[in-house]
């Protein structure tokens, strides 16, 4: 592909500068997990230490917050995964009355500002007198991630070859068998990426959680609440671990899906 406009070298350098800018605060976060601060503020470099990695779970409140985040993210991934798959499969497979309205609802839920979704959910919970905590957080997280799962699954279902189903039917498979033996394995990677997306959206969410958590702390909420008094290096270590885990998972799933793509 030759689309030479000139200056592509310059653009290449520019791309790397921008990537460096994107990575800079991440590097700072990782670096200060190895810092040995003297006072309460982990802001200036004072020397290298590994001790925070040994004491990563030493702060009980922070660890509890991380556990809440992980539990909510798992619950969100499972519920939004199941509900979103249902919507995505139906929208990709059939044309039915109300599909347009559903699309609009999903679009609104994706496009609405988090601030407004969070505050409106709080309005609802306050009006009902419902208690705020892990359950209300999970309800909120499923609400904003279900549409993303649906969109990802639908994109895969739309490209399904209908003749596969016909072949299965010709061989005497019932609709139920065809779904589980033929369709489901094909759309499973899409479902899994939807589930992972929901997990990632949930564990990182701050704004909507801020409104629906009450006094419950999640990892991002704990960090937010502690910025004024100074963040302990454990936060950097946990952030680094989540970052490394996420990157590793993404790279692994990419490597695994590569050979499959070639044979498809």
């Amino acid at each position, binding site marked *: 592909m030759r689309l030479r406009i000139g200056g592509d070298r310059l653009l290449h350098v520019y791309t790397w500068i921008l990537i460096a800018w994107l990575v800079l605060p991440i590097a700072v976060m990782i670096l200060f997990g190895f810092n040995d601060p003297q006072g309460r503020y982990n802001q200036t470099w004072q020397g290298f230490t590994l001790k925070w990695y040994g004491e990563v779970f030493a702060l009980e409140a922070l660890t509890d917050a991380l556990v809440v985040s992980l539990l909510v993210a798992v619950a969100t991934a499972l519920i939004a995964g199941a509900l979103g798959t*249902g919507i995505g499969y139906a929208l990709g497979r059939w044309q039915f009355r109300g599909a347009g309205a559903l699309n609009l609802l999903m679009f609104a839920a994706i496009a609405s500002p988090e601030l*407004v979704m969070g505050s409106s959910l709080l309005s609802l919970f306050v009006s009902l007198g419902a208690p705020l905590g892990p359950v209300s957080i999970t309800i909120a997280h499923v609400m904003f991630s279900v549409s993303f799962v649906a969109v990802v699954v639908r994109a895969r279902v739309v490209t399904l070859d209908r003749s596969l189903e016909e072949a299965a039917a010709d061989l005497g498979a019932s609709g139920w068998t065809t779904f589980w033996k033929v369709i489901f394995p094909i759309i499973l990677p899409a479902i899994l990426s939807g589930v992972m997306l929901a997990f990632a959206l949930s564990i990182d969410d701050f704004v909507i959680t801020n409104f629906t958590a009450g006094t419950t702390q999640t990892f991002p909420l704990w960090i937010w609440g502690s910025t004024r008094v100074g963040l302990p290096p454990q936060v950097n270590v946990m952030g680094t671990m989540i970052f490394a885990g996420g990157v590793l998972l993404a790279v692994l799933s990419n490597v695994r899906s590569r050979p499959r793509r070639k044979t498809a």
Partner: protein
Amino acid sequence: MDRVKRTLTPYLLVLPGGLWLLLFFAVPMATMLSLSLQEGDIVNGFVFTGHWQNYVDSISAYQTQLIRSLVYGAITSVVLIVLAFPVAYWIAFYGGRKKATYLFLILLPFFVSFVLRTISWRMLLTDDGVLLHPLKEAGLLPADFQVLGTATAVIAGLVYSFLPFMVLPIYVALERIDPRVVEAARDLYASPLTSFRKVIFPLALPGVFAGVLMTFVPATSDYVNSELLGSSETTMIGQVIQSQFLSNSDYPSASALSFTLMTVLLIGVFSYARALGTEDVMKVAAR
């Protein structure tokens, strides 16, 4: 019987998720609308009185913050187009086999919690921080140079936060361009600049529109960047709504502000989506 089952199947599949969205997205919006028209206080409870004055009062009290947020959001989106377009262009046309790797690098910030990233920026931008201190020592910046607390810091933070959301849709639009179309332009003696202006850029516009959509809304309603990187001079409407809801428990006027913000933003979003087709935006958003 079988036919009935088949016509029912999509509805049964859609029901749980659709109901969830209805109950926890649509109903809360209605609740908030109702709350915004109520009077009372947290101790004695709120009563619906159709109190439109809430809107008048809260908008006139916080119009500075509302307008400031819209301005910050708009500046953020424009800066993002300028910053992201060349990168998306380079990856789409010159990325070769490493396209996926470059996109992955652009997405790296998403593996770090939003709040934590912004705090890292605050550490970098703080007066005697890792970035400014050495520059001041070296005499590259005046000793009293300060960026934290300014509008520049807040907008820079917003730009940083939402950059991937602009790169991706523009990249998707550029990636879709058939190279033969560009070759045809060249064959017809269009200069590189002309073929960019008349062929590539118009074809990339849907991506730019989608990028604006995906960045303007969250940037305008953000309160993390302005809280962590700004000062009282840069207060955004999100901070007002957040503190009205969570600190003051002044639900009616907070609801009125929140609803106003949403109306302003959604009118913009839906007129965008109309011009573009909802499906297209959803597709780009799904990437």
